[in-house]
């Protein structure tokens, strides 16, 4: 057995030299010919599913989606890829990501996510977004094609942008610039300092002042354009103008029930058009409020333990279902760090605990697109939208079957393998493991 393996390995080694050559990532060129994917289960991203369906796209736009008999104009000009038995989804979108801003969490030199200061609406993530971050290909590998690259820290962290994950530079990556401002509503209590042996929260003595500061900022931002004869341009207030015409969303980081209410009311009163809650751990306590206000909630910690001892043993797993049942729009995010590549499995866990499957898909595709204000361009597999498409060998949400075989960003067929895959091959070859025939 061993001998056969060695011979086999030598063979694969020679065959693999071609693979070895491709140890670099090159952003894909624009789509130069129309492509038709055929035979797969098509998850449109709006709840609709086509068994044995097709997806066709040309010049970066989707031209047809539907069942097997869907007619595609000029079908003969299309390159047909048979993806029978596989699953097609819209490219996944991850919200509140540190992608391109943080490379190695504990190395200060590689961190560009947290600016100093309390109110930084004028801080923009897009100009720091590093298209050569080695985390990017690991996201693509699991089907994530768009990310909201998001600043953090302070009360107003800054302005995020939506990037597509196959680019030469940040201008190239920019898919939707300055989509939202990110605000952390203060908490009335600070968590215990475990390293001092504390187990109880401490009151936040500055809560009132911080809230007052936020309210002042928003009211002054709102009147900023109405005041004539200003002495100076205020970059912070300028940056906030988009909140009032809807071109920028306001993402509120909050997990505390009362803080969510305060923050949403403040934002509404100030005339903010698009409001999203990020975190929302206690959203179930105020579900009617959130439903009536029509505020979507991003769950960014499905894989976490309950925060209170008396809660359901699997509350974070169930939360998506319970919010959905309450009529609240649920979005799922992979969270801030490297592990957001597990976004499909966070959605999978939500399904395991009761969220309908297609709702889970919506929560990582069309839902985020809407929250980002780009639902007219992306998020579902519908004619006329940008061709952000992934093909998985099986169910994308289950790690047993989740294998992204093809990914298209605006119709461009992108590489889904990178250094991690190359290292896999490199060392498998070193040991003579047969992995290419699998």
């Amino acid at each position, binding site marked *: 057995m061993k001998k056969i393996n060695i011979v086999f390995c030598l063979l694969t080694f020679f065959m693999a030299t071609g693979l070895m050559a491709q140890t670099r990532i090159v952003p894909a060129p624009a789509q130069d010919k129309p492509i038709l994917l055929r035979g797969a289960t098509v998850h449109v991203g709006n709840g609709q599913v086509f068994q044995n369906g097709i997806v066709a796209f040309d010049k970066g736009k989707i031209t047809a989606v539907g069942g097997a008999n869907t007619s595609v104009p000029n079908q003969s000009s299309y390159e047909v890829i048979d993806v029978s038995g596989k699953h097609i989804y819209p490219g996944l979108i991850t919200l509140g990501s540190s992608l391109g801003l943080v*490379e*190695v*969490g*504990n*190395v200060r030199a590689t961190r560009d996510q947290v600016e100093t200061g309390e109110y930084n609406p004028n801080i923009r993530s897009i100009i720091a977004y590093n298209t050569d971050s*080695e*985390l990017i290909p690991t996201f693509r590998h699991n089907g994530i094609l768009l990310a909201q690259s998001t600043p953090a820290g302070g009360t107003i962290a800054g302005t995020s942008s939506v990037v597509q994950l196959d680019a030469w530079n940040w201008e190239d990556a920019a898919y939707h610039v300055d989509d939202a401002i990110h605000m952390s509503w203060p908490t009335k*209590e600070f*968590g*215990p300092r*475990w*390293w*001092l*042996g504390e*187990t*109880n*929260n401490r*009151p936040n003595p500055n809560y009132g002042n911080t809230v007052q500061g936020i309210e002042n900022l928003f009211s002054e931002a709102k009147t900023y354009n109405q005041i004539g004869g200003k002495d100076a341009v205020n970059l912070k207030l300028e940056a906030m103008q988009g909140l009032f015409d809807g071109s920028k969303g306001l993402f509120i980081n909050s997990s505390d*029930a*009362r803080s969510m209410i305060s923050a949403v009311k403040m934002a509404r009163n100030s005339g903010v058009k698009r409001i999203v809650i990020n975190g929302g751990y*206690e959203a179930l*306590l105020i579900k009617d409020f959130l439903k009536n206000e029509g505020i979507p909630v991003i769950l960014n910690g499905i*894989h*976490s*333990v*309950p*925060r*209170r*001892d*008396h809660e*359901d*043993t*699997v509350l974070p797993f169930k939360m998506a279902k319970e919010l959905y049942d309450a009529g609240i729009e649920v979005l799922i995010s992979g969270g801030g*760090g*490297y*592990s957001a*590549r*597990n976004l499909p*499995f966070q959605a*999978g*866990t939500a*399904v*395991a*605990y009761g969220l309908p499957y297609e709702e889970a898909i919506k929560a990582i595709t069309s839902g985020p697109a809407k929250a980002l204000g780009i639902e007219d361009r992306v998020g579902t597999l519908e004619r006329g939208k940008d061709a952000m498409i992934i093909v998985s060998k099986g169910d994308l*949400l*289950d*790690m*047993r079957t*989740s*294998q992204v075989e093809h990914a298209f960003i605006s119709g461009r067929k992108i590489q889904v393998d990178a250094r*991690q895959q190359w*290292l*896999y091959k490199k*060392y*498998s070859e*070193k*040991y003579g*493991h047969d*992995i290419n025939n*699998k």
Partner: protein
Amino acid sequence: MYLYGHLIYFISKDLENPIKKIISDFFLNFQKMYVPIKLNRMRNLLFVFLILYVCSPIYLIAQETFPINDVQDTRTKAYAFTNATIFTSYNTKLEGATLLIRDGKVENVGTSIRVPAGYATVDLGGKYIYPSFIDMYTNYGVAEPKRQGGGGGAEQIQSKTKGAYNGNEAIKSEVNASEKFVVNSRAAKAWRDMGFGTVLSYHKDGLARGTSALVTLGNGTENEVMLHHKVANHFSFNKGTSRQNYPSSLMGYIALLRQTYLDADWYTKNKDRSFTDLSLEAWLANQSLPQIFEANSWHNVLRADKLGSEFGVQYIMRSGGDSYKRVDAIKNSGAALIVPLNYPAAYDVDDPIDAYKVSYANMKHWELAPTNLAHLEKNGITFALTVDGLNRKSDFLKNLRTAISHGLSEETALKALTETPANLLKMSDVLGKLDKGMVANFVITSGNIFESDATIYENWIQGQKYQINDMDAMDLSGKYILAVNGENYDLEISGKPGRQKAKIVLNDTTDISVKMSLSDDMLTLNFKPNPKDKKSGMVSLTGWLAGENINGRGQLGNGQWTDFVATFSEKKEDKSDRMSRKGGDSKPEVGDILYPFSAYGNKTLPEQEKILVKNATVWTMEDDTKILENTDVLLENGKIARIGKNLRARDARVIDGTGKHLTPGIIDEHSHVAAAGINDRAANSSMVRIGDVINSEHQGIYRALSGGVTAIQILHGSANPIGGQSALIKLRWGQTPEKLKIENADGYIKFALGENVKRTSNPSSIRFPQTRMGVEQVFVDAFQSARDYEKKWQTYNALSASEKENATPPRKDLAMETMLEILNKERFISCHSYVQSEINMLMKVAEQFDFRVNTFTHILEGYKVADKMREHGVGASTFSDWWSYKWEVRYAIPYNSAIMMREGVVTAINSDSGELMRRLNQEAAKGVKYGDLDPFEALKMATINPAKLLHLDDQTGSIKVGKDADVVLWSDNPLSIYARAEKTIVDGTVYFDMDKDQQMKKEIEQDRARLIAKMRSAKAGGSRTRPASASYYHEWECDHVHVYQGH
């Protein structure tokens, strides 16, 4: 004597401390010498008299050595208290009795005693006399040193204590509280007002704190009030002011105390006495005293008791108020307790969202804490009481009465305040009772002191009266018609004598407040006749009792003088008294105690069952049987009894496994749940043991069960190259810490490499090592030293018995002992590791010393040296897909596990996280996604492979007849994201059941609603509350370090 005492006090201020000490030492030793004599000759009346007359004015003897700047002024003080109800001891109550005291001692007590001539007689008219209480856990008069704040910075490796003391700053056995003690009359008064007469005072600093002194709460000189200067020897789990690097964790404290016991023993055997250690000298000298350990919680009582048992020491424990949670285990420890009455305040739960944040366990403790003493009494546990631990000391009696209303008997309460502390301190010959010859410490009360309306009038200490409430205070309560300058007012005086208040009633709803003060038999009244008129002046009256009425003279607002009369009209009923009596009669209803005391704890512990799982897909995890479809498995007597088709078993509980999957329990090689801290900080911390600090109450255990986990290794953290010893436990939710441990499991130890051990996160760290080069030398040095250590012992052990007599044995060093266990293949290494260079290095070090590394844990670059690992014979326990969170995991790839598996390395997937451990089956499944592993091989990484790495594969980790019945029933393929653990079974006992879990959730919701209602009514009833804030249990990770402070 009192004035005389003051004189001496001032004189003694000028004396140098050492002289004072010699004087007091001499005197106190003298006193102690007499005590046994006195007891032995008790029956001989002549001797008793002799002793009374020769020895009893001991406090005067003390003064004799002091210079006098006057003529001699010694006075004999003798009192008789007649017609009293006297508790001469906690269980002896004499009615109509007389107490004679003379010169600070009890001269006689009984019912038919003639009062000798010359005694000042006080007729108590039925009032009660109790022996004054004893608080045997205070730092009265001994200042508590404060720990310097701030963390981080350069580590302090050596002790900063100056002098010939122990190498560890937290060992302060040389300290004698008596040498630091100064009388603090203000603090003394607070204790006296609650009925205390004597306290034991210790110095609150260090793990070994030295000796305590027994002092009365009198206002005399230090020399007078100190009854004995070395009474008990004290320990704690709080290193206090020490900022020395090691130890910093609870397990480190235990390890240091353990080592110090050994060092002290070795010190006595050290023939050539090559050095002097005054701390060890004192440690040894103080072993014959009562040993008191400040444990502060039931967990720590058991931990301290285990430590004491290793050295034949039975500690008296300063416990927490939580012993009821595990009262059986506390009873089995055999320890006597010193118990605080620190009941938590109710949470302010008026707001439902606030209420939601409050921990269920904390809510339950609020309700059950007052039952603690009743549980102790019921279980026959000996205990004393202490004021220590109360935020408001003055709550003591109120809280004690609450304990009585919750089932504690008054007799036991009194015993815990008198005879028990006297016995525990070996001072029962002078304290705790009112027998002839004992110190005259007693309180006079209006009646039964345990009833809420009792008033303490006087507290006599060493024969000296301290008035708390005036026994003869005028009782003016009643309604009066107050006539002043032609106006009549309805004056009401209410309250108990000595604490009376006055008001003027205008109508049903409006009163005018009256400031009233009484002194001797004069009374002063001040009020504003027309409070709304700000300009109107104050009426001020001063009066005296004239029969039932009050006559007097006063001044009006305008300054005009006038006479006044308050004519008594009727007695006023005191409503408050009647109310409080009514409340105290019935025992309140309380909820169940949970095991463990945590949300989702059990009301009764689940029991082992005979279970037949029918028709399941059985993942046996054995290579010859692999996955069996439609198969039955019988669990009996905690073992897997049979595997097959169509099995039948009488009396078995049948579980339908159709469409479900049965797997062995998930095993986590790398976990930090269920431990009270996981890192100590010495570069070689091999002497610390996680097994000393298991926390059986951590909900992480239950949550892990909900993810199918049945066994884990609780590893020490990764702050040091050589970390502490692991504990291997099964998740027997509800059992006590010792019962979680896997019997006969092999010993393990954590090693670590790389960024954490270099203290990368602390830029000012100076601790060796700071580089990977240094890390290697720590290992080489430790193993080489262990070999040298072994040689020393071999040489010594080879000596003949007579040669040994004259030789000094080598010092037993627990760190070296552990290193030797590794070298002798009796303890196995699990090494935190990331990059290939360091992995390779440790294998080479092990080979140099002729042993093998057992496991590389985390090992994210294992794929680069998998062939070398296979050759070395080491296993791997890795993360599925973690990377990028630190520099050294830059080249981590999710294919790592698959490559190592293919290369023949026994590979497991670990969690290092209380969250991830619930999903290890799915983490293993990532081997299918990333490395294309066969599903059966993938599941091995969460079952049989970790069992192999922990040397448990002969008893668990696969479904095989004869192995432990540790299995999980899944709703779906166990590798699927959709799989949920429906039942998790450990040793044939169902510790997690999805349906029961949902049932418990409902019960918790109902019980919380009940408790919230109870808290709201407590608040409405005037109870103090605290804000409803969340509390957290910190979820430990590898590099979390904190300094344990004895909570």
